[in-house]
């Protein structure tokens, strides 16, 4: 497979993105991404432990945060070669939903509990001036395997799996060209996880949108992604196509994550804690390479200098040259 930076067309290109959050007494930067690419029509994974800034990356793309304390400070977010950061509020609103759809982790909270599902979907269609709403909703529900009368029900009347299917409908109903799925299966039962994942894969193949899949579960990535970015404390530490990363991970963090991933599947149970320690707080980041206090292959240099991104592949001093 060719390298992720060797394509002609990209649906999304992120350059030097910095997102910051004001907390009492200081400002932290949950996202610092130098380069991030999603080739047209591909499925790209973004993986890392929780707290590594994956979700904040998704929020930064849409410029939509759960708190007013957070904002994108600098950088470019090129969607179809157009910088989203230069857009007015209303143009950006039109892109949300219509051009970029988002699937959330916590499906139980993403619909207003006192409004019927159908009405909430209509509201989205109306916002983008789409007609034939009834028919469109019925078709979209069909596509995800839901009965049409789901539109007449309230969110609390649906099971988790059904709600997440509705979540996918809401993300796809305007035929967006990019879908961001943030931990779409994490909150579901194991049996239903696979169904939802298959559904996403099938829909992607059928409708040919690009998909950014955010997850902490490398098993999920292996299942459906073409490429994967590994994120740690807001920075990208490694990127590659999925086979490459699974065959020959480079960054010690990736190696650790992979061990964790396999131990989850029960093959190498002996490894209890794949990576020692836990992710540092963004307000107390270590000097040098941010991963060095937890790294099994740490060198003297790692404690002092932060590694650059070598060969457009990995940010680790082991791979200098």
């Amino acid at each position, binding site marked *: 497979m060719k390298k992720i930076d060797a394509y002609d067309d990209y649906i999304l290109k992120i350059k030097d993105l910095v997102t910051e*959050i*004001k*907390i*009492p007494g200081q400002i932290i930067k*949950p996202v610092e991404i130098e380069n991030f690419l999603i080739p047209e029509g591909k499925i790209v994974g973004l993986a890392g432990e*929780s*707290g590594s800034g*994956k*979700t*904040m990356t998704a929020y930064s793309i849409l410029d939509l945060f*759960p*708190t*007013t*304390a*957070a904002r994108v400070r600098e950088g470019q977010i090129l969607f179809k070669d157009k910088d989203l950061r230069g857009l007015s509020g209303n143009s950006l609103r039109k892109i949300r939903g219509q051009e970029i759809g988002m699937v959330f*982790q*916590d499906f139980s909270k993403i619909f207003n509990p006192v409004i019927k599902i159908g009405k909430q979907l209509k509201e989205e269609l109306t916002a983008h001036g789409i007609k034939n709403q009834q028919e469109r909703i019925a078709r979209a529900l069909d596509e995800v395997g839901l009965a049409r009368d789901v539109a007449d029900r309230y969110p609390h009347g649906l099971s988790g799996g059904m709600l997440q299917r509705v979540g996918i409908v809401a993300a796809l109903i305007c035929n967006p060209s990019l879908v961001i799925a943030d*931990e779409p299966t*994490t909150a579901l039962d194991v049996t239903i996880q696979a169904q939802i994942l298959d559904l996403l894969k099938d829909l992607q193949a059928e409708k040919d949108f690009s998909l950014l899949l955010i997850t*902490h579960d490398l098993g999920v990535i292996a299942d459906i992604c073409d490429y994967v970015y590994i994120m740690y404390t807001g920075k990208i530490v490694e990127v590659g196509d999925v086979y490459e990363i699974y065959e020959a991970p480079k960054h010690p963090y990736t190696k650790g994550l992979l061990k964790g991933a396999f131990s989850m599947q029960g093959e190498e149970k002996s490894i209890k804690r794949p990576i020692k320690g836990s992710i540092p707080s963004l307000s107390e980041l270590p000097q040098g390479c941010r991963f060095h206090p937890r790294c099994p292959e740490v060198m003297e240099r790692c404690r002092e200098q932060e590694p650059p991104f070598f060969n457009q592949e990995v940010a680790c001093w082991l791979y200098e040259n």
Partner: protein
Amino acid sequence: MSNNSSKDSSEINKIWYYFRRKKLAMAGLVIVAMIFIMAVFAPLLAPHDPHSITRHRFEAPGTADHVLGTDNMGRDILSRVIWGARVSLLVGILASVTGTIIGITLGAVSGYFGGWVDNLLMRITELFMTIPRFVLALVVISFFGTGINRLILVIGFLSWPGMARIVRSEYLTHKSHPYVESGRVIGMSDWRLIFIEILPNVMPQVVVVATLDIATAILLEAGLGFFGLGDPNLVSWGGMLSLAQGYLRRAWWMSVFPGLAISLAVLSFNLVGDGLNEATNPRLQSEGFNTAESKLSGGKT
């Protein structure tokens, strides 16, 4: 136990730390302190005897002798406002204390034991929340006669339901905490657990509600006074307003100053209560930042 008390004092320090930062709450505290001083030192502060009738009737405010004017019997309004603080504070605080004692007892028993006891007590609470207590207070005092002790008792006995509900919900959460479970395991009696082990942990909430209850009790007392059911031997702000009603055209100052006094007293206790509530409730402490952080971390597990 020394361990326990040092924990308590650090808790108080923490609450004070947050409370101090709230300008409005501090302003409320200053007003409360001023009303306290007025009430305690009324005989020294008041320029005149509040009861002495003079021939300077309906004197407008602004004269050197009667800064806030005089009423229909030539009594000094300023002195009466100062003395009135005594009744308001006394009734407000003691009625709130009475209500608090009843509320804590019923709420704690209800929340701790649960079951049919809880069911019964909550039904009674509901009944007392439903009865319009101002009207009930009016009827009871008309029947049994007035007097400051009765005012305190009647208002106190009518203002416990809110406290009982909040204490109950606190006990419901506390009773399954490990410290209570382990107390039970080592054989502590229920009463010890209720009043010695759990109660101190519920106190911050109790103080918040009790402070707000003082404000409500002051309003209730003023209302009763306005209906002519205040203690006839004491000067009360509500009674002054009742008197002013008949002379609105003649002497606006008879209404304006005692009314301001009631409003300020109620406002200040409300401000202190709100401030305490925010200071004791970590969720409210710094709206924006804390919620932002918890939301961001909560979103990705």
